């Protein structure tokens, strides 16, 4: 771990009942050339991590099944004081939507971890949306009556992002820039933040999106 004077903007705590995952996360954090994250707490038990310096971490990365116990019902409370990123082997669309609705800022499946971990956590800390292909799939698969209405371009961007892991290829396919593709995808995610039960991260995410010019206030009623 670096001992230089780089200010690590984002503090992160990780809870996972597999030591190997914790070791992997440490390695990813250390390997980030920009050193965007600072790991302040990690462990296999949520209560012990929150009893230590992990309590004040900006972002809590949480495995959804800790020793067989589901963490989904605790997300609502945990998300009151920090941003929560779900990090799970569970990939079902319904779980992903339920976890995001409960107040998690992002959802990262275990197999997506290596490619997206740093970006997902950094985005969660800034209340910016980050949509992994699994989340894109969960949004595309949503057929519930109160799902938000997505535009054709937003749906197309989600669809291509679900199909292809490289955003520049998606952008080329749509004849757009990567930034524009990102905007469509983010807008779809923001629309999800405006439905369902209220949560601090959702309000913050919408406010941030308005501030960034991603959406207009009238777009979210």
């Amino acid at each position, binding site marked *: 771990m670096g001992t230089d004077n780089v200010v690590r903007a984002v503090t992160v705590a990780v809870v996972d009942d597999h030591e190997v995952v914790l070791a992997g996360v440490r390695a990813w954090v250390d390997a980030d050339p920009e050193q965007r994250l600072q790991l302040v707490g990690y462990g296999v038990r949520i209560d012990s991590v929150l009893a230590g310096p992990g309590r004040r971490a900006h972002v809590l990365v949480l495995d959804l099944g800790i020793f067989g116990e589901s963490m989904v019902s605790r997300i609502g409370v945990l998300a009151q004081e920090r941003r929560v990123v779900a990090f799970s082997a569970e*990939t079902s*669309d319904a779980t992903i939507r339920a976890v995001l609705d409960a107040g998690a800022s992002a959802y990262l499946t275990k*197999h997506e971890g290596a490619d997206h971990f740093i970006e997902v956590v950094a985005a969660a800390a800034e209340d910016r949306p980050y949509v992994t292909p*699994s989340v894109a*799939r969960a949004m*595309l*698969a949503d057929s519930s009556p109160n799902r938000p209405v997505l535009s054709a371009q937003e749906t197309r961007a989600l*669809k291509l992002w*679900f*199909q*292809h*892991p*490289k955003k520049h*290829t998606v952008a*080329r*396919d749509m004849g757009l820039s990567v930034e524009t593709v990102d905007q469509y995808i983010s807008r779809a995610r923001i629309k999800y933040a405006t439905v369902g039960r209220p949560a601090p991260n959702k309000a913050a995410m919408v406010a941030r999106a308005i501030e960034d010019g991603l959406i207009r206030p009238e777009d979210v009623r």
Partner: protein
Amino acid sequence: MTTDARPAAGYGHGYARGTALAAIIVAAVWHVLNNLSGTIVYRDEYRTPWPQLPHVLVPLAAWVVIAALIGLATADLLRRPHDTPQLSAPAAPVLVGVALLLAATLVVSSSACPKITFLSGNWAWTAFGWPAMLLLWRSPIGWLLGALGVNAVAVIVAIWLTRDVDRVDAARLVITLYGATAIQMGLFAGCRFMQRVAARAAAARAASAELETRKLVAEQIHEARQERYHEIGHSMGEILGGLADGSSDPGDSDVRRRSAVAAARLRRLIAERDDTDSPLLHELRACADIAERRGLVVGLEVVGRLPDLPVVVRRALTEAPIHLMAVAATDCRITIIAMPDEVEVSAVADIAVGMRIDESAGTGSGGATGVTVSWSRDEEAVWVRTTWCAR
């Protein structure tokens, strides 16, 4: 396998209905021709405890009650399907009906004057069996036998108590009862036997129909399989032949690619036989399984519910991913986006060094209509999307 056994069942059903109709006609005709005419002919030969009313009203009322019971039993017999399983014991309303019938019989017998004891004016005691047969049609045969026995005992006791009976009368009584009971039981047993034979014939017919259906299905499956084996047998034979005679080099990337494609197609062919909820997914998994054995990491994800697709469409949709997996180096991501009238299969993979990709794969294959294929590639990966559109 549950084939449609209805025609065969109808065959047994027809027999059961026929025997029931025969019994109904016998009971109704007998009730009108013998019982009603007997009552009318001997209308002055009845005595009841109510002298202020015409005495014949009492046997007439009994006749009406029995007619009503025949009507109810007929309605019940014709309404219910005739292949309804036989009951182990009669239902309560049936027992009430039999009791009413017995009461009506005793009323007629006890109101008839002694001089018509053995004439058709005293019709009820020998006529008891016909309506009783209809009422107990679905009950085990012992119940009718028991009811006839109870009737016989009741009639003998009633006659014994209400009039003087000599030895000759007693003998006539027994012979008449025996004769009537024998005919009624004979008809009932005959009907039962016919029903059983018909049911057995129906079962045999159903079994042979099922056997025939199975044979047909097996033949069709066999033909389809032969056809498909023929399709891939040619390319398989070519590859294996080339390897055997040394004209093909197993190290050659093109030989490896063609072998991988043929192996996946063979695996798909086997998977096509399986009965699964979502055959396209199952077949893609099977193809992915073959590629994973070579060390490729294949991710397979689905959005939406897959519509039913014919095998030619499924094959056209899986053909391009098979070709891509055959040349993929390390990873392949396969996704399916399904809508009721559109299915898109996408596959993205990095290409192994030196591997050539056959971008004509999947285009115009197998006579499937509405399937389009689009390939695109950049420096990192090859992306193929196969789309089936119902319109």
